[in-house]
């Protein structure tokens, strides 16, 4: 009698890549003929966080971080310090496959711990204009099924922000079609 065992493709691909064998598993699991159905898998790793460093805000202005990591802190009333870094992601999937990247399109509000509905101006920073280093927000995985991308963005100050740590989250998704 024939039994079918389904494995995650990552399992099989990695075994092959690392020169190991998964025959032992197959034999333990089924005594009869085993057919492996290879499933494509997709992995996403966040290898670096988006970091604007620290800023002293004296007035209205923007700080933008390009997808290549270049920080534009040329606004007259804003002084930047510390290290800025773009968010970085690794994608592993099917070789030679194109995947699209979805970034937030609107404004993300970052709030101060003292934020209340009545103090929006001084306790909120707006983050927008997310950019990736991928042309058209699309990457094509290489012959080994690997790809990576970075994400930057722009923060906008209205000048009334109080000192402190502002917290917020943003969505990044990788789309398989």
């Amino acid at each position, binding site marked *: 009698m024939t039994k079918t065992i389904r494995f*995650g493709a990552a399992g099989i691909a990695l075994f092959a890549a690392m020169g*190991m064998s998964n025959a032992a598993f197959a034999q333990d699991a089924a005594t009869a003929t085993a057919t492996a159905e290879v499933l*494509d898998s997709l992995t996403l*790793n966040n*290898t670096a966080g988006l970091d604007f460093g620290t800023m002293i805000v004296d007035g209205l202005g923007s700080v933008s971080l390009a997808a290549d990591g270049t920080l534009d802190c040329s606004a007259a009333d804003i002084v930047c310090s510390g290290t800025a870094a773009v968010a970085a992601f690794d994608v592993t999937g099917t070789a*030679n496959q194109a995947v699209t990247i979805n970034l937030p399109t609107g404004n993300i509000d*970052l709030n101060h711990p003292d934020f209340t509905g009545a103090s929006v101006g001084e306790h909120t920073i707006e983050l927008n204009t997310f950019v990736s280093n991928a042309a058209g*927000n699309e990457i094509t995985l290489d012959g080994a099924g690997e790809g990576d991308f970075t994400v930057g963005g722009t923060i906008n100050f209205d000048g009334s922000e109080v000192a402190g740590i502002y917290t917020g*989250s943003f969505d990044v998704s990788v789309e398989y079609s």
Partner: protein
Amino acid sequence: MSFKPMRALARGAAVLVAFSSLSLSTPIAAQGDLLVAPTRVILDGRRGTEVILSNIGNEEATYRIGLELRRMLENGRLEPVEEADANDKEKAALGMIRYAPRRIVLPPGQPQAVRLAARPGADLPDGEYRVHMSFRAIPKPREVTEEQRASDQVSIQLIPIYGVTIPIIVRHGRVEARAAIAQPRVVEGERGPELAVTIQRSGESSTYGELRVTKAGVDDPLVLLRGVAIYPEIGERDVRIALTPEQAAAMKGDLRFEYRDMPESGGGLLAALDTRID
């Protein structure tokens, strides 16, 4: 016969070992890193299936599983569609998919199956219905470090909520599609030469496959792009493929363009075009 448990065990073991090797090669795995398999699901009967989600990060993570809508544009991009803007077909698609669980907490290296099935209504018109299943990591709030706290400046703590989406396709009743390749040409893109090809599609079904370009007398394809989907909402898709200078130089003479089913689906020919580029 205890066939099912054995199957689950085999899969679990395979995926588990995959993680240990994965974490070897990516030592900087962060909280919420994830693996999803398979990368697309086609449901065409009453039988359900499973998608495996695994935590390949180095910390326990919470994942949220949801259904979203996307529409393909002619340039191949998938555009998010809010539920309020959904058309009847998209609403029907959202309504017929059953899945569980919707939230999973996984220790590092741990996989779990998400079960899903389609329950199309009895009077549903024949056609292809589609949703996109999203798997997102919900990060735990981080402790604020002393260095950050001591500051009289403004600093920002950004938490990426990141994940993947895969298409879930329901083929209900009789659906077909035809494809054709048109207008292959080499154009100068933003970042160098690109191969531009239009693939036309007709019928109620989507097409999915690989686009390969071969040169007369050369076995290996000059260009290969896998996973090219054309969904029913568009009648043609412009495919752009970035070319290396070598590929661009070779993209001359008698060329054969083929759009084929993926090899694991039999590799059947969907469309072909023999042409000459001078």
